[in-house]
């Protein structure tokens, strides 16, 4: 992929990056033999998968199968929970994210996150978007960055006259788009979305899905979803996870979304995507 030289924060990625070439693009994230433990409990085991750039990869599976845990290992959000342990490798452009000298804060700036419940800061709309760039030492024109981010999150027209108002005064769908604007304001490379639509009504859900289509031009997206229609509609690749007998999550099958939904090789996958369990 083409990466701007110099400090990435000084350049707003307004110009779209090159489109992914035909065939499989570069793998931005490569996970090998990943197991994750909360204290004595192993939440996921033996997960290996690759995430292609400028694609939407959906993680689906029944409740408790470790989709969110897996997602959160990618930007080291799980570091914040005491007593957790990671085995295996999570590579980002070939760099092991759990290597001793890797700074988790820097990881999260490059791999942004949108959470299940919209969680704007109790600050103004403007400050919600500006917070990330500020803590990351952004020196450019903040007004432009805020406007560009809100525009890319399809929220600018709704809020351009009330940037000083609280982000919490917006509707649920608008709040989630504000969180997306906040995530892209730091100009990340990858955006992780943890069931971003589960708290939203169908109309807001569709808006977010449309937004994801536009965002994948510039970002690589990994999304956890409970909603199989959403995975089928919105994603390029689907990873189906399930819970083993020891309650540890594992990857049953992964592949192009179309083939997972129309021609799954595993019986479990077929049962799940056809709604027979889960």
């Amino acid at each position, binding site marked *: 992929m083409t990466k701007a030289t110099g400090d990435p924060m000084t350049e707003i990625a307004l110009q779209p990056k090159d489109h992914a070439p035909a065939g499989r693009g570069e793998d931005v994230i490569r996970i090998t033999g990943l197991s994750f433990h909360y204290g004595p409990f192993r939440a996921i085991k033996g997960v290996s998968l690759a995430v292609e750039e400028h694609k939407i990869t959906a993680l689906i599976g029944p409740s408790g199968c470790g989709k969110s845990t897996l997602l959160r290992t990618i930007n080291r959000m799980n570091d*914040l929970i005491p007593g957790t342990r990671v085995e295996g490798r999570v590579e980002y452009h070939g760099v092991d994210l759990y290597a001793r000298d890797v700074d988790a804060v820097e990881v999260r700036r490059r791999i942004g996150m949108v959470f299940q419940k919209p969680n704007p800061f109790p600050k103004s709309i403007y400050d919600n978007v500006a917070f990330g760039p500020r803590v990351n030492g952004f020196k450019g024109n903040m007004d432009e960055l805020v406007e560009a981010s809100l525009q890319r999150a399809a929220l600018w027209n709704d809020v351009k006259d009330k940037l000083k108002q609280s982000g919490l005064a917006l509707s649920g769908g608008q709040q989630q788009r504000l969180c997306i604007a906040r995530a892209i304001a730091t100009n990340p490379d990858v955006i992780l979305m943890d069931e971003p639509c589960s708290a939203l009504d169908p109309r807001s859900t569709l808006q977010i899905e449309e937004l994801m289509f536009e965002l994948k031009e510039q970002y690589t997206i990994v999304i956890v979803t409970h909603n199989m229609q959403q995975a089928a509609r919105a994603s390029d690749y689907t990873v189906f996870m399930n819970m083993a007998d020891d309650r540890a999550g594992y990857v049953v099958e992964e592949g192009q979304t179309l083939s997972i939904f129309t021609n799954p090789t595993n019986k479990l996958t077929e049962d799940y995507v056809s709604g027979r369990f889960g």
Partner: protein
Amino acid sequence: MSTLGSSAATTSAAVRASLTGSRRDVPGTAFQVVLLGSLLFSLAVLAVLLADVLAKAVPVFAARGLDFLSGPLSSNAAKAGVGQGIIGTLLLGAIVSLLAFPFGIATAVYLEEYATDTLVTRFIAVNIRNLAGVPSVVYGLLGLSVFVALFNAVDGDASGRSILSGGLTLAVLVLPIVIITSIEALRAVPGAIREAGYGVGASRWEVTRSLVLPAATPGILTGTVLALSRALGETAPLVLAGAVLGSFSGMQLGSLFTGSYTALPVIVYDWSRKPQDAFRADAAAGIVVLLVITLIANGIAILLRNRFERSW
């Protein structure tokens, strides 16, 4: 058709009867009465106290308002004033604010945001709660044996019974209250806000400073108001930590940290023990002054809190 109509009317009547039924919710009503009664009882006690105090205090203020507020202590009830007590109480409040608030809030932030949840930190947190329940006179003994003795040793001329000893004693007394209320305020900040902060690449310091502390500020301020009110009303620890009972000259700014001191609640305590009715009236007037100071302190804190709540 007519039978159908009449049966519909019958149904409607039956539904109406059941919906408007006068089933009396006796326990519910009784509960409500008990709740209201409790409220009225508390209010009544407060009103009687206030009325009693005001009835005694008003003649004192009417007779010599400014003289009473500015005058020094005296063995003559008709001349005694609370000037030294006001200065003492304000200074004690300042010392408590300067010491207990920063240390208490910092401790709470450390315990809640930084310390890992181990047996040791739990032990510390539990014992801070225990400290909040220790009787204030015990803190007075601590003030006497530590601060008074320390300042006496440092400056041999002075007795160590200075306002600094009293202020430090009160600061230590309210420190657990500040810590506990600040911890509660920090805990009330949703974890989702922290996650969101970390999610955009903020460090722990940035998350704490820019997101958690602003969100917790109203709650922390409420705790500091409670703590300050408690400190300003304490008598026993100050008596032990060297506040003067009776009269003395001084409390000039130059000798504040070495000389004798007193505070409003100490004066009120002292006067109310005296046999003369005139001193009882003076004590009531002193209570009114103390109440006004506490109310002003609370008012400032509430203003600050509202300001912080609106700041975004």
